[in-house]
């Protein structure tokens, strides 16, 4: 009775409905974690997972319904892996690299495996190689010979070496034994009905001497135990052939879609100068999978990489249209020094997929790089524009107009005092390695750069906001560091409340001569407190007027609300950066700390007026979210982007010269002006356009203006004559447009981007430009698969 009574009372509790936003966030965070985990698992030695899946009771999906085939294939996988280890992998990868023609999709596919693989390994990311082709994956990539010194010869070490793709040269027979035994053990441990043993004859497992790797399944004895080699449908490849295979993987896959041929190794070996003889089984048993589609193939029963479904939120971007100079001669936009998009693109590509088109903001790609623009001499004219006109690499009939601005660089001694409040998201979703731990490391680096009289405070927000560190002088580094150490994830995301707390701290320490800034570090949404994006935006904007600016550092993926972060940063006179690794953190917080923190000019707007007698059409590449109305230019109340110390800003127009056949819009038949020559040109008729830059100095409320004309004197007849910076910027712009699937880019390919960029790299001491080249290569190999 009493129990029932108690139950009744307890069940009377009124439980409010859970909020949709919270639920959505929970699902997103969980999915992000799930994905991360899947990635991690994939990074582990693929063989195990493979075997595991193949021998599991219910083979999922259509390809391996037949158990025999499944077992056979498992054997094949082991053999190929063993081969990979025995034979020095360099040759294979080199050969494969040499070939890598991009004429057809298949070859590009195999080239990707080789090229991107090594890159990706560095980042501990999962290359988008489907498990159906471990022959390529495991030979060329997993075992670059030059990476590690000498792992101890323990089972664990060997496995770990395989795991991380680092294995010194050729392993000895013992190592092989260990590996194979481990695999056998793993299967046995699974307690599956079938047991298989893989053995290598230890005496023969030396490079240079004949080696036979056998795959066996339990039936009748063939060579070692009482087990027979699983029968007919196997490929036997010689070493030579395997090399051919990796080159012509594509062809092979097409030729041998579901069947496996039996090719005897010895006849072909006659010409080969290597005497190794392998019994190898190529896994090219399935048609080339279109990566990313597989997961959908069998009604959601995925067995390959789950496709990355972007749950990250981006604002829709509509690519700027081509404008007719006679109708709209003036183009106006606000500058933007954010770089978040570049880091996001990099992350996607390093993971092996193309970024969502809307995550690619070309202006942010352009502004990621440090161009060698001339520096202004003093602070009174905070920047100096450069202009260049040169032929468009992707269109012979148009020209590019490159505008570059570099902000006055404050010499460190003169840096104003900084009053900073870090607002750190410590909600449960920040727990993964690429979020809070990365942020903490970034902050530690940043603390080193603080001056003694700077002040720092840290507010952590989760279920509620808490001040982890009261305002502390930069001199007291130990105290700051220990506060950073105390940050740990857990709690919900009362971002709105956190922002209020952070601002009140910043206000308390307000230094009218210094830099007052709240730096928000988060992985996504605010779901408690001010949840309304507009209200939050207004709040930030109000505070901006009181002199406290906001910068946003974004972390993690899967739940990242880029649109909101951008809005907040733009309204808070700040910039948004996306931090995907410690290097990026260093770039943003340490190398560019000055520019991220010290504004030298605010509300910087650019207006370009084109000369209709020289230019018929123009198109601004990027800056879609930053366009302003023509009349906004002179209106000092209209907010625009800020330039920090040392920032550079780059904008590129594609212009169609008058009379060029590249004109996209036909002249009007009834254009009254055309015949009457009534187009009045104030300026020189050799001018392409007239550039106006309007800005306010940080402490001023009225604008100043810098103007310059863009005439034939700034033109370069050939692309190769143009300054390296211009060429590189053009390459970046082309890359961005390719990623966005922009139609204006014509037949330009990733290879063309590579060529263009390659020739224009100079003085790349931080390696950012080289990294760009790698990204283009990654994009090239990810693009045939077309997944985003």
């Amino acid at each position, binding site marked *: *009775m*009493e*129990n029932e009574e*108690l*139950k009744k*009372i*307890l*069940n*009377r*509790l*009124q*439980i*409010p409905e*859970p*909020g949709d936003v*919270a*639920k959505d*966030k*929970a*699902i997103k*965070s*969980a*999915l*992000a*974690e*799930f*994905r*991360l*985990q*899947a990635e991690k*698992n994939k990074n582990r030695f693929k063989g195990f997972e493979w075997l595991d*899946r193949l021998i599991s009771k219910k083979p*999922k999906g259509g390809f391996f319904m037949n158990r025999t085939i499944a077992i056979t294939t498992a054997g094949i996988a082991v053999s190929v892996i063993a081969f990979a280890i025995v034979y020095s992998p360099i040759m294979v990868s080199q050969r494969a690299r040499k070939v890598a023609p991009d004429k057809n999709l298949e070859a590009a596919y195999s080239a990707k495996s080789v090229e991107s693989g090594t890159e990706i390994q560095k980042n501990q990311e999962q290359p988008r190689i489907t498990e159906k082709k471990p022959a390529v994956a495991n030979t060329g990539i997993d075992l670059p010979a030059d990476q590690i010194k000498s792992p101890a010869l323990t089972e664990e070490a060997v496995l770990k070496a395989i795991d991380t793709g680092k294995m010194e040269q050729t392993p000895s027979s013992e190592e092989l034994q260990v590996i194979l035994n481990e695999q056998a053990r793993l299967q046995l441990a699974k307690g599956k009905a079938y047991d298989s043993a893989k053995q290598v004859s230890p005496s023969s497992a030396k490079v240079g001497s004949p080696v036979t790797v056998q795959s066996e399944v339990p039936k009748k004895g063939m060579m070692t135990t009482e087990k027979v080699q699983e029968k007919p449908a196997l490929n036997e490849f010689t070493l030579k052939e395997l090399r051919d295979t990796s080159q012509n993987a594509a062809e092979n896959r097409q030729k041998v879609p579901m069947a496996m041929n039996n090719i005897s190794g010895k006849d072909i070996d006659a010409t080969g100068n290597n005497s190794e003889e392998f019994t190898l089984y190529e896994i090219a048993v399935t048609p080339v999978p279109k990566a990313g589609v597989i*997961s959908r193939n069998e009604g*959601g*029963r*995925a*067995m*390959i990489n*789950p496709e990355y*479904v972007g749950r990250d939120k981006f604002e829709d971007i509509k690519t700027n249209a081509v404008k007719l100079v006679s109708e709209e001669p003036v183009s106006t936009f606000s500058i933007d020094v954010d770089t978040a998009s570049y880091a996001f693109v990099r992350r996607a590509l390093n993971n092996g997929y193309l970024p969502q088109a809307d995550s690619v903001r070309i202006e942010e790609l352009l502004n990621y790089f440090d161009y060698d623009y001339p520096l202004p001499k003093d602070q009174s004219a905070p920047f100096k524009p450069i202009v260049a006109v040169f032929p468009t690499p992707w269109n012979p009939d148009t020209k590019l107009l490159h505008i570059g601005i570099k902000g006055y660089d404050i010499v460190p001694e003169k840096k104003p005092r900084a009053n900073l409040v870090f607002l750190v998201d410590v*909600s*449960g*979703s920040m727990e993964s390695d690429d979020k809070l731990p990365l942020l903490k490391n970034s902050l530690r680096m940043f603390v080193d750069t603080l001056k003694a009289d700077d002040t720092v405070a840290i507010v952590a927000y*989760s*279920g*509620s*906001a*808490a*001040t982890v560190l009261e305002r502390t002088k930069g001199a007291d580094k130990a105290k700051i560091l220990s506060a950073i150490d105390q940050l740990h994830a*857990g*709690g*919900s*995301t*009362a971002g709105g*409340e956190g922002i*209020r*707390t952070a601002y*009140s701290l910043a206000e308390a320490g307000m230094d009218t001569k210094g830099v007052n800034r709240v730096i928000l570090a988060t992985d996504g949404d605010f779901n*408690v407190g001010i949840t309304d994006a507009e209200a939050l935006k207004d709040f930030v904007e109000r505070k901006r007027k009181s002199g406290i600016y906001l910068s946003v550092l974004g972390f993690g993926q899967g739940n990242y609300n880029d649109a909101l972060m951008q809005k907040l940063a733009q309204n808070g006179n700040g910039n948004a950066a996306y931090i995907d690794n410690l290097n990026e953190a260093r770039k943003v917080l340490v190398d560019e700390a000055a520019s991220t923190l010290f504004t030298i000019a605010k509300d910087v707007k650019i207006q370009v007026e084109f000369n209709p007698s020289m230019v018929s059409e123009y198109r601004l590449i990027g800056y879609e979210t930053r366009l302003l109305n023509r009349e906004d230019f002179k209106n000092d109340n209209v907010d625009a982007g800020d330039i920090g110390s040392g920032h550079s800003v780059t904008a590129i127009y594609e212009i169609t010269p008058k009379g060029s056949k590249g004109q996209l819009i036909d002249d009007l038949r009834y254009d009254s002006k055309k015949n009457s020559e009534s187009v009045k040109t104030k300026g020189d008729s050799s001018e392409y356009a007239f550039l106006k830059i309007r800005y306010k100095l940080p402490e001023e409320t009225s604008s100043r203006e810098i103007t310059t004309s863009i005439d034939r004197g700034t033109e370069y007849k050939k692309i190769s004559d143009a300054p390296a910076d211009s060429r590189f910027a053009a390459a970046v712009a082309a890359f961005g447009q390719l990623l966005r699937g922009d139609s204006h880019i014509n037949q330009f390919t990733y290879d063309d981007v590579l060529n263009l960029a390659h020739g224009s790299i100079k003085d790349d001491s931080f390696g950012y430009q080289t990294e760009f080249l790698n990204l283009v290569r990654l994009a090239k190999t990810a693009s045939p698969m077309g997944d985003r």
Partner: protein
Amino acid sequence: MINDSDMELVDLAIGGDERSFETLIEKHYLSVYQLSFKWCRVKEDAEEITQEVFIKLGRKLNTFNRKSSFRTWLYRIVINTAKDYTRKNSISRLYESVFAEEQSNEKNDDPPTDPIDAQQVYDAIDTLPDKQKAALMLVMTEGLNHKEAATILHCSETTVSWRIHQARKALKNIFNVWCDNGK
């Protein structure tokens, strides 16, 4: 709550299928949230606990060993997460006191008005040790039997019974009224 299809979804999800994983969350979201709410009785906290539960699920799903039903396993995550959460929270509340004026009254507004003191009973349950609280809640509000609760709490059935007995005794002391009603 039927375990068969749970297992199927779990299998698919372990195989890497995101959609199955999402379905799994959708399916259990409400029950996880409700248990979390009963544990802490603050909507936002319950939502946060629920979120953490599913994040953990995403991280640990492939360690699910099928020895118990998925629901049982999930309950264990919920109980552990909820315990951790309230523990952590009690620390962060120290910080909060510093910013009491900022905090306003968000936290304490929420409890819904309740005719016959369920709220009070829950408040009383809050004073019990976590172990007793967990056992009592699983059995009394989630309707599990002692055996299931034992699996979830990693203890023997008799321990569960003992904890519930202890809990009831403690509650009786708080609500003498019950003694009268019960006997």
